[in-house]
């Protein structure tokens, strides 16, 4: 049982890294970006290519995945996305679905539609068990690694948002763009950096997730609903909201699939609908907000 909880936490942490960028861009620009998963997929494929073709060690691939998708994010933000900020939600949905479809088809063309596998370094394989009987806790080493990395990232993001100058500007822009611009904050620049960082994190998540989630060209569509759940349930006003939502989702999904495998992903979807019925603006939306 503890093992399931542990796996759930690892899974949830991974979902958090994947989705946090989406949450921030959605909160900041009120932009519904359904193509977020495409950036994650790109990060995954960058890692696969580097490891398979160039024998780059796994740990070096992670920053590479982050940087390459962040750069890609900047390019897309500057050329395409920024025209979409003030469009209707329908336009945004159509646009980002289009982008997703193109990325799926291009990846299929470039990399074939098969599942990609990577060789993890030896020290990340294997597992450690603690305790006995029903309370045994089996921890895959890779999952420990995931939790540590993602916890560090979450902590770092929180620190940046609450303590740095950039963080306070970002929060001001999220609260009210016009006022922020009036205060001399370069909202455009903040958008761009945030979008890049968000895409980069997604790419990093995609790289980290190859071992856990798998990687094939349908990735952006397969996990789209999970990203959206994290954002919708967690709200867009903080880092902690999406974090808790991601953990909840991870644990519920792993536990659900373990205990009632015949129900599949059914439990997660139902849980989400119930939560959104109860709190339509997510679990963690600030009271008295807009």
């Amino acid at each position: 049982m503890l093992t399931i909880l542990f796996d759930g936490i690892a899974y949830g942490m991974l979902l958090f890294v994947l989705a946090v960028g989406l949450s921030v861009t959605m909160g900041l620009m009120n932009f519904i970006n359904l193509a977020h998963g495409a950036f994650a997929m790109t990060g995954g494929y960058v890692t696969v290519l580097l490891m398979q073709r160039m024998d780059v060690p796994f740990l070096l691939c992670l920053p590479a995945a982050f940087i390459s998708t962040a750069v890609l994010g900047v390019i897309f933000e500057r050329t395409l996305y920024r025209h979409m900020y003030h469009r209707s939600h329908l336009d945004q949905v159509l646009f980002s679905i289009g982008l997703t479809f193109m990325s799926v088809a291009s990846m299929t063309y470039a990399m074939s539609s098969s599942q990609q596998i990577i060789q993890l370094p030896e020290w990340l394989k294997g597992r450690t068990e603690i305790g006995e009987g029903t309370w045994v806790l089996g921890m895959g080493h890779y999952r420990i690694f995931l939790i540590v990395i993602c916890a560090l990232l979450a902590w770092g993001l929180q620190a940046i948002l609450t303590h740095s100058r950039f963080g306070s500007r970002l929060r001001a822009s999220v609260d009210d763009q016009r006022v922020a611009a009036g205060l001399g904050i370069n909202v455009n620049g903040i958008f761009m950096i945030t979008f890049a960082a968000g895409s980069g994190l997604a790419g990093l998540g995609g790289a980290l997730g190859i071992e856990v989630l798998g990687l094939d060209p349908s990735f952006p569509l397969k996990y789209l609903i999970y990203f959206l759940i994290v954002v919708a349930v967690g709200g867009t006003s903080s880092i902690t909201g999406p974090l808790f939502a991601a953990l909840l989702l991870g644990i519920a999904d792993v536990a659900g699939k373990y205990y009632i495998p015949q129900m599949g992903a059914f439990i997660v979807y139902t849980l989400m609908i119930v939560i959104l019925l109860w709190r339509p603006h997510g679990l963690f939306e600030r009271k008295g907000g807009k």
Partner: protein
Amino acid sequence: MESASLSLQAHSRWKHLETVFWLFALLSPWLLAKHALIINEIVIVALFALSLDLILGYTGIVSLGHAAFFGFGAYSAALFAIHVMPDPLLGLLFGAGISLLLGALCSVLILRGSDLTRLMVTLAVALILKELSNKLSWLTGGTDGLQGVMMGPVLGKFDFDIRGITAAWYSLAVTFLLFLLIRRLVHSPFGATLTAIRDNRLRAMAIGIPVSTRIAVIYSISAAIAGAAGALLAQTSSFASPDVFAFDRSADILLILVIGGTGWLYGGIIGAIVFKLLQDVISSITPEYWTFWIGAFLIALVIVGRERFLYPWKWFAKR
């Protein structure tokens, strides 16, 4: 001054072009007998798009999971034919009725929250149903779906033939009747209140329109029509599989509607014709990368602007 009555009813009067269009459409299975199968497909997709237009075009509600109702209608009609009786019309009514109920249930979900929550919830409902159709194999045949559903003759007289001519007639007739109903509906006071809700929900409330109830009603109606389209598909293809709930289908139908333009009834129909013909052509050239072109098209459409894309002369207009 023109009289109010004349101006108000100008929209609801039949135009010659419309009459010509429908005459041609209703005769098409006979004129183009060779293409009866694709005509049938187009008609079903057009009806499905029409149902989405009611909520997206007329009421302004974005949905990413309209395939939920389409698929639900398809399975209901197929199961009805297998377990109850093979009469197509009763099966169609059953499929539409069941989808109506599902729509009424789901409307509770879309009344609250933001556009984002609505997208999520509609998407999730379709995914849940897909999951269910996969898992409840004793009822739905699992991933294989329900195959070889035997249908009785339409009205007890017209058997479904292998060339699909009866099927095309049947789908066309049903779609035409439903179109007439929808056409009445959107030009009525009820339809006008929907447009009011789309344009300005706050003001709609301030003139006494019960916004939530209206949305629930139109959402259920739209679900029933989508269900009817699904039922037609299951009946004319003797087949229903979990694929009817797929995300692609919801996204495609959104695209189809947008190609033809939202909020004027013929958008879905034109979109369906263009989309299906394009799909036919492009798939025969590069079958695997059809989605790539769809994606490129969507992006171009949005960047250029949906209005200008449909009416190229607006490029040069002042506004």
